[in-house]
């Protein structure tokens, strides 16, 4: 698992600022108490003035395969309540609900690859795309291991959850967790949320839900831990989450080295064969028949 973090220009902060830096904040989402009401989705859209899916709301698109019509996170939908419908038999099955959002990774792949410096880490340890800097190159979309980022069709820039930076910076709770009627989405300092999440997982296991575990809560885990982590009761893939998310830079050194060796080899081969040809021409030109 790649836990190495490359330097980030926009992360440079002074020692004084570091001393007064607020504690990292994020979300703990307990999927076992999500009721799929989508209040978080609506609150997010309302607060952040996001357009409806598809053609901007002129026509409401239905998925036709589920009660879930949002279907995916995108530049226009920063919260998405997934409906995982597990019905192997007509009268036997369960629904898993999960309110998905940007994970605000401690080692953020999107921030790593962004070529314009539009993606920054805030004082709350969250990851924000500056819409006035982003030019829509879409490198971050392919780099995100969770498929979180998309192009917003109003701003024509890459966008995703800001963890309501405009609210948290003035001491308010993000719109989604504020609207959640069951406290499935909980907001707060990461250290407190981890303690609360671990206690909840233990409680569920004691009550017989032995599959309960935390996804992304381990600071020594993938991407240095996620500042938005989850309590799940099935395999990560069932929730559409990668089992082993990685930093995109894992391929940079090896790929560059292999290409550089091949490039050097071809340049040297070209130079040597051309030089050989020139020497041959000179030798032919200096033979007696040519001299005469």
């Amino acid at each position: 698992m790649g836990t190495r973090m490359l330097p980030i220009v926009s992360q440079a902060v002074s020692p004084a600022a570091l001393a007064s830096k607020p504690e990292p904040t994020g979300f703990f989402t307990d999927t076992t108490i999500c009721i799929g009401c989508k209040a978080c989705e609506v609150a997010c859209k309302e607060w952040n003035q996001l357009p409806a899916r598809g053609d901007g709301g002129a026509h409401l698109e239905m998925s036709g395969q589920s009660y879930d019509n949002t279907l995916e996170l995108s530049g226009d939908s920063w919260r998405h309540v997934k409906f995982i419908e597990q019905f192997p038999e007509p009268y036997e099955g369960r629904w898993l609900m999960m309110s998905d959002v940007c994970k605000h990774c401690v080692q953020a792949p999107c921030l790593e690859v962004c070529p314009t410096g539009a993606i920054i880490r805030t004082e709350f340890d969250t990851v924000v795309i500056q819409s006035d800097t982003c030019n829509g190159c879409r490198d971050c979309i392919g780099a995100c291991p969770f498929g979180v980022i998309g192009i917003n069709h109003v701003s024509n820039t890459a966008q995703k959850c800001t963890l309501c930076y405009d609210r948290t910076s003035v001491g308010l709770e993000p719109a989604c967790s504020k609207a959640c009627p069951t406290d499935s989405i909980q907001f707060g300092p990461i250290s407190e949320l981890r303690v609360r999440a671990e206690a909840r997982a233990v409680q569920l296991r004691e009550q017989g839900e032995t599959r309960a575990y935390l996804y992304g809560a381990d600071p020594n885990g993938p991407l240095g831990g996620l500042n938005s982590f989850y309590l799940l009761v099935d395999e990560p893939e069932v929730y559409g989450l990668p089992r082993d998310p990685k930093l995109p830079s894992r391929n940079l050194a090896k790929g560059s080295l292999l290409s550089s060796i091949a490039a050097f080899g071809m340049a040297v081969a070209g130079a040597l064969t051309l030089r050989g040809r020139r020497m041959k021409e000179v030798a032919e030109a200096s033979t007696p028949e040519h001299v005469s």
Partner: protein
Amino acid sequence: MQTNLPSTFFTAPPEFGWIIILYFFIGGIGGGSLLLAGLLRLFGIPADRPYIRLASFLAVVCAGISAVLLIADLSSPLRFWHMVIQDHTLLPMFKWWSAMSDGVWILLAFSLFAGTATIDALQDIEWPPMRTLRSLLRVVRFISRPPFATISAIGGIVSGLSLAGYTGVLLAETNRPIWSDSSWLGIVFLMSALSTSMAAVMLLSHWRRVHETSTLEWLTRFDLVAMVLELVAIVCFVISLGNAAQALYNVWGVALVLGVMVVGIVVPLVLQRRSNHGIVLPASLVLAGGLLLRAVVLLGSERIHVVGTQVVR
């Protein structure tokens, strides 16, 4: 949802479509052409000059088209300059650990050296036709003299090879299926760029009725090496995909084997060995194969995405 899928299958496609495919193809031809021009300038013979001219012109045209394609592909094209200048501080924007940032600076360096190579090549011929422009060109004639000519040729070789190879590394530095599941994509694109650029230069020379036997023989041999290595690199690339190779168990996989490997590489290799087939057919097949290779790699990955709770392939 299947639980045995590679983690890269749970990401979103960045919508790299035909504009990027064309950029990878044309940028590769440009990069390879500038490598050829640089090698011939440094180690060639006087009879190579017409080929140097063709390769240099091709490189500078590819540089221009590449820049237009890249800007057109941005969702906010007017902000293209944010790639090179930080919009808040107006300081240079460069992140060596971002392949896309590297690529922008590589394209800039490539354009500079393609420009100097073209200026050098223009000294040979009566072009541009206007006397005023020709006298302007004379002002920068120093580029054709040592040590500037050597610097220009070496810069062309380095920036050309970098442009030809970085695109594969750019795709590898994502979390997308196929692209990031292997480190071999850089070599695959590099070798393809070299073979397609040589095919393009040979086609241009045929069209312009430039025929210098020794240069053409060298180009054909060098092209043969690039194509064999490209074939080996593609095989290594597919093997290195491991479980992620299932992303190519479809029409794109068939296109890779039949279109790229057989029609785009093996058939031209056989045709080149039988010299009576001329230049046009094998070179055209190599170019078509190079374009198809990029389409297979990009579109083969782009179609994989999660909708609801299903991975769509």
